[in-house]
């Protein structure tokens, strides 16, 4: 039992994200499982996302950060492929999803110990979503698929969700004023299609489906990798007992989360909000008390005399 799980409170959405938001007979919760061990860094997901969602161009920069020129998730980058070059053996990058490789890849194969990690990052569609909790207009909402989506016709650009997100995902679009992020292709889900990024992924590194099924698939894949000696492999955002109640979009990583720019143990800020409200009430009372005491101590004003 984790600390996080025991810290649950009435602000918690629970695992039935859509049901907790008032949907009756909601379809199963849908999500992404991004298996970075088979990502080849082709960026088809980035392109497909931009095209389908008509996300505007946001600068064509050369960053010098390996093959990464989009830097990170932003209002105008909803899928971001990270490229990490490391001096570690490549053995972790055995692919062969449909069976064991012909022979195990050895350290000698690994270009003298250089490995290249690639990972397609995306909005986590948290079970306990800080952006959704703090949105004052109701622009951010929980869909029937359990995903978190911004309604661009409601958003007034207050910007509260931006610092609330523990992953640095949602952001304000320059020249537009509103906030934008991955919608898990809400428009495509509605007609039974899969999101553009998953559809375009040539290696099935991005897998889309009912979250329960994806979690089982991820557990199998993790066991498979561990049995092949890839001890670094781990799931990120898979655990419903974590600080965000589990992610709707979770990952299989080959190194520590922070290496990919992901926070190692994010906790939704609103878990502390009930105690904050209590302390605000105490602090507000202290304002009354302080001013009241000062004036009561001084007594009634006697026309000029003190």
């Amino acid at each position, binding site marked *: 039992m984790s600390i996080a799980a025991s810290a649950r409170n009435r602000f918690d959405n629970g695992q039935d994200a859509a049901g907790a938001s008032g949907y009756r007979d909601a379809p199963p919760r849908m999500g992404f499982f991004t298996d970075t061990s088979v990502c080849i860094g082709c960026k088809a997901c980035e392109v497909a996302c931009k095209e389908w969602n008509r996300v505007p161009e946001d600068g064509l920069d050369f960053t010098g950060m390996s093959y990464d020129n989009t830097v990170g998730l932003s209002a105008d980058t909803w899928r971001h492929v990270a490229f990490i070059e490391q001096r570690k053996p490549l053995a972790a990058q055995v692919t062969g999803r449909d069976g064991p490789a012909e022979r195990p890849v050895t350290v000698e194969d690994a270009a003298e110990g250089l490995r290249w990690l690639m990972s397609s990052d995306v909005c986590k569609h948290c079970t306990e979503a800080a952006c959704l909790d703090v949105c004052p207009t109701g622009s951010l909402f929980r869909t029937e698929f359990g995903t978190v989506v911004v309604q661009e016709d409601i958003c*007034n650009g207050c910007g509260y969700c931006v*610092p609330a997100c523990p992953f640095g995902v949602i952001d304000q679009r320059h020249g537009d004023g509103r906030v934008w992020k991955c919608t898990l292709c809400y428009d495509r889900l509605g007609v039974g299609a899969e999101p553009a990024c998953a559809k375009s992924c040539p290696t099935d590194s991005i897998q889309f489906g009912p979250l329960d099924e994806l979690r089982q698939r991820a557990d199998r894949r993790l066991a498979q990798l561990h049995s092949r000696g890839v001890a670094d492999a781990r799931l990120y955002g898979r655990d419903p007992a974590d600080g965000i109640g589990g992610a709707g979009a979770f990952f299989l990583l080959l190194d520590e989360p922070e290496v990919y720019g992901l926070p190692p*143990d994010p906790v939704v800020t609103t878990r502390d909000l009930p105690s904050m409200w209590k302390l605000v009430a105490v602090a507000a009372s202290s304002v009354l008390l302080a001013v009241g005491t000062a004036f009561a101590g001084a007594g009634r004003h006697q026309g000029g005399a003190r």
Partner: protein
Amino acid sequence: MPNVDATTTNGTSRARPLDEVMTGANGPGAPPLRVEGGRRGGKRSGEPTPRSYYDLPVLNKPVWGAPDIPGYLFLGGLAGAGAVVSAAAQLTGRRELARSTKVVNAGAIGLSLFALVHDLGRRGRFLNMLRVFKVTSPMSVGSWLLAGFAPAVAGAAISELTGRVKPIGAMATAGAAALGPAVATYTAALISDTAVPAWHDGHTVMPFVFASSAVTSAAGLGLALAPVAESGPLKPLGALAGLAELGLTKAMEKKTGLAETTYHEGRAGMLMGASELLLVCGAALTATSGRSRTRRAAGGMAVFTGSLLTRFGIFEAGNASTQRPEYTVEPQRRRVKDRSNGREDGRG
């Protein structure tokens, strides 16, 4: 044979073995170039390497602008605590003080509303703030608080200035005093209810920082505006609230752990330092002002300005703390480590 660049010639010696070719991998190699105009901050030279993706921040920087938002944090506090001072002054027969503070409160809340709408990405949609009520969003709670508080403060001021509808004016004054403390302190929950290390991690003390800062500013301005005969109660109030603000701010900074340094560096450091000086000097000046109007006004304005700078300093520190990945990553890593250690202990 013409001079050919060794790296482009097929198999030309192993002068630069593959593992020495410049890469982004850990170890020797040129640091990555920065995006022109950097969408995000980069690594600063000479600091220990934080572990994150190319040393980029994990969090997005708040998009709230200055002076709009820190200005609102201050003005909301000023008007919130000021509304209590107005009511107390009225109840105890301090007419001049009640009158001047009511006008100040209305002006402060008017400016606040302007600043809040001005900071929106879509200003025409400001009324969407009252589209829903959500207790999980301090901004939603605050919007509804302001929707009640602003008309009350305005009504109190108008009634005071025109001398008309006195019963309504009295009710407005009382209503404003009831809502004022909440208006002055909810903003602490507003900024703490984020992933920003320098704000969130101070969340247990932040409401008291804001409460004391609000009282400091309202008392300070009252000291400057009211005649000596009426500002007596504000003397101890302004001095003590100023000192409380100082102490509580220090305590809040301590709570933020690693991110505490953001309160001592750069622009935030300058603001917090100036605030400290003004609060100490202002409190001393106020406490020793005797019955001198000038000294009271000087002391009052000093703590008032100190309170203003505290809010701006806290705002800047929060922004800065989002730009350093280690403030986000390190405490979380420690948490994960402690948890796994605990688990091992549990098994053993």
